[in-house]
């Protein structure tokens, strides 16, 4: 398992080193704080979708769920809901969305791609409709603001709130996936669903859990993004994020065929994607080239990973053979 991380870690170190050498300001506290903040936000989404990907599914609705949660939060703030209640209601909504996805996938046997593609369209539509597509802010909810987007000073370095969320989410996710029976069941069912079922594992329930985790983390990200940006554009907030989340998960070692994934890998991959952007901006590369570079680097990363795996497999074969002699 550990091998999966090597490629992406190498990529991270390479870009990090390259940018640090090329631009003196890269290592400034302010820049690193921002890098940590955005990486954390992306990583939380990535971890969510990683669970779904491990079951062999996919979730394209993440960005729209983020937009919906951010939009509704703004509406609620405006209607002077109690902030805590609003947050709880929205978290419950996210969980509900995941539940619906899970039920449609397991009980109705619809394809995850289709279910969540419809979700992508539907939640976006609902965001626009309920808010009349007005951008809104979160003006006066100061406690929530510092909870979701505050900073904790450690020397001159201010650790951003999303980072703490990430730490909690990552630890829980890591424990869940690697130390508990449910995590193991998830890995097993992602590899061989029938086999898992024959072993007495409630595969449907676990799959639903994966979708719930994913939507829950998308909803949480929605709140974090909302308070980070302090504003929501119902038609735009979160658009396209699912692709970044999936890219992070896959680059971080999840196979879309299911059954494989590490939390640490996803986090590093999310950091790589954000780092790339930061680097492009700091190096003053044309803003128009940004997408082209990100696409190219991800592809190279994945290809390098594949090549490393193959070389290792060949070496393993050679070892087995020589061991037998």
């Amino acid at each position: 398992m550990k091998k999966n991380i090597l490629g992406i870690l190498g990529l991270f170190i390479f870009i990090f080193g390259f940018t640090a050498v090329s631009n003196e300001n890269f290592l400034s506290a302010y820049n690193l704080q921002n890098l940590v903040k955005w990486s954390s936000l992306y990583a939380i989404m990535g971890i969510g979708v990683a669970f779904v990907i491990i079951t062999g599914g996919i979730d394209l609705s993440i960005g729209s769920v983020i937009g919906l949660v951010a939009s509704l939060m703004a509406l609620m703030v405006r209607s002077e809901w109690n902030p805590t209640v609003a947050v709880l209601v929205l978290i419950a909504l996210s969980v509900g969305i995941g539940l619906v996805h899970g039920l449609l996938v397991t009980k109705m046997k619809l394809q995850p791609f289709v279910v969540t593609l419809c979700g992508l369209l539907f939640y976006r539509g609902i965001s626009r409709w309920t808010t009349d597509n007005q951008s809104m802010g979160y003006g006066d909810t100061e406690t929530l603001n510092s909870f979701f987007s505050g900073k904790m000073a450690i020397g001159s370095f201010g650790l951003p709130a999303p980072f703490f969320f990430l730490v909690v989410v990552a630890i829980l996710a890591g424990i869940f996936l690697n130390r508990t029976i449910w995590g193991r069941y998830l890995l097993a069912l992602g590899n061989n669903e029938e086999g898992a079922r024959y072993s007495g594992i409630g595969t449907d329930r676990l799959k639903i859990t994966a979708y719930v985790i994913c939507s829950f983390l998308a909803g949480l990200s929605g709140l974090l993004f909302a308070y980070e940006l302090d504003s929501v554009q119902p038609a735009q907030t979160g658009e396209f994020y699912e692709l970044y989340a999936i890219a992070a998960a896959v680059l971080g070692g999840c196979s879309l065929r299911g059954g494989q994934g590490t939390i640490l890998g996803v986090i590093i991959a999310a950091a790589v994607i954000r780092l790339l952007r930061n680097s492009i901006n700091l190096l003053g590369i044309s803003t128009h080239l940004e997408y082209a570079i990100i696409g190219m680097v991800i592809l190279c990363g994945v290809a390098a990973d594949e090549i490393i795996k193959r070389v290792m497999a060949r070496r393993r074969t050679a070892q087995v053979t020589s061991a037998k002699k």
Partner: protein
Amino acid sequence: SPKTSNEGSIAYVTNGIDPFWDLCAAGVHQAEAEFGVKCEIHMPTKGLADQKSILETLLAKGIKGIAVSPIDAENQTPFLNEAAKQTVLITHDADAPKSDRQLYIGTDNYKAGRALGQLIKAAIPDGGEVMIFVGRLEQLNARQRRQGVIDELLDRPHQTLGQVKFDEVAKVFKGDKYTVLDTRTDNFVMDTAKSNAEDAITKHPKLACMVGLFAYNPPRCLEAIKEAGKLGQIKVCGFDEQDDLLQAIKDGNAQGTISQQPWKYGYQSVRVLKALVDGDTSVIPDNRFIDVGYKIVTRENIDEFWAEKRKMAELGAQ
């Protein structure tokens, strides 16, 4: 038919979905009440293809008048001419000067850009480094605004709208006092808008002023500055009228903004369409251009402006 139906006899078509357009919708509603017409509002989701198919549908429906903000005016001209044959057609926000549209309701974005340039000069009278942030540079209004800002800061001569020459993107422009560093685009992705601002602060420690050309850009700049602890140190100037920006102007954290008073687009469009549909051509000025102008909003007139915007926002939400 469905409850949400807003079927009307005239239509107001935007170039996309943006809060800006919802403020325009406020003007539409205002005029609807005043002139006793019903106006459909259509916001194409994804670009030109959407806009075209919406226009086609409206024509199919036999709509009596359309006000449209063409996405690519020059190349849409033949199609707009087709439309003008079938209905009363006017343009708003962006013009298609070579088309057979009856008239254009809008502002001169180049001039507005120059006005923004003057705001910047007022913000950093001693000069310094300026950086521009915008959603997309392919939109004509974005290019015109940007050019206006650059020309003003570099004290270049005024250009005429419609014949503006645009400078390339990845280039630094150095004037006597002011340097325009770079223009970063974010494709309407909010976190990119913010991180672009953050990265600019990181990269250019001597940055003096950040300029946001689309409504959501100035607030993102403000947040980045605030988190960098440089509030007041780096000035902010912008376009449009998002609440966060208005608040910052009020608090003295931003210099000012250029508002196109979007509701005026909506209001004027409906007023003119209604008249034209009724056969009253007296609303057409000689130069076929109704300039709704722009408003320079600074600390002096912020309260009055904000009050009006609030009123309009409520109306737009109906």
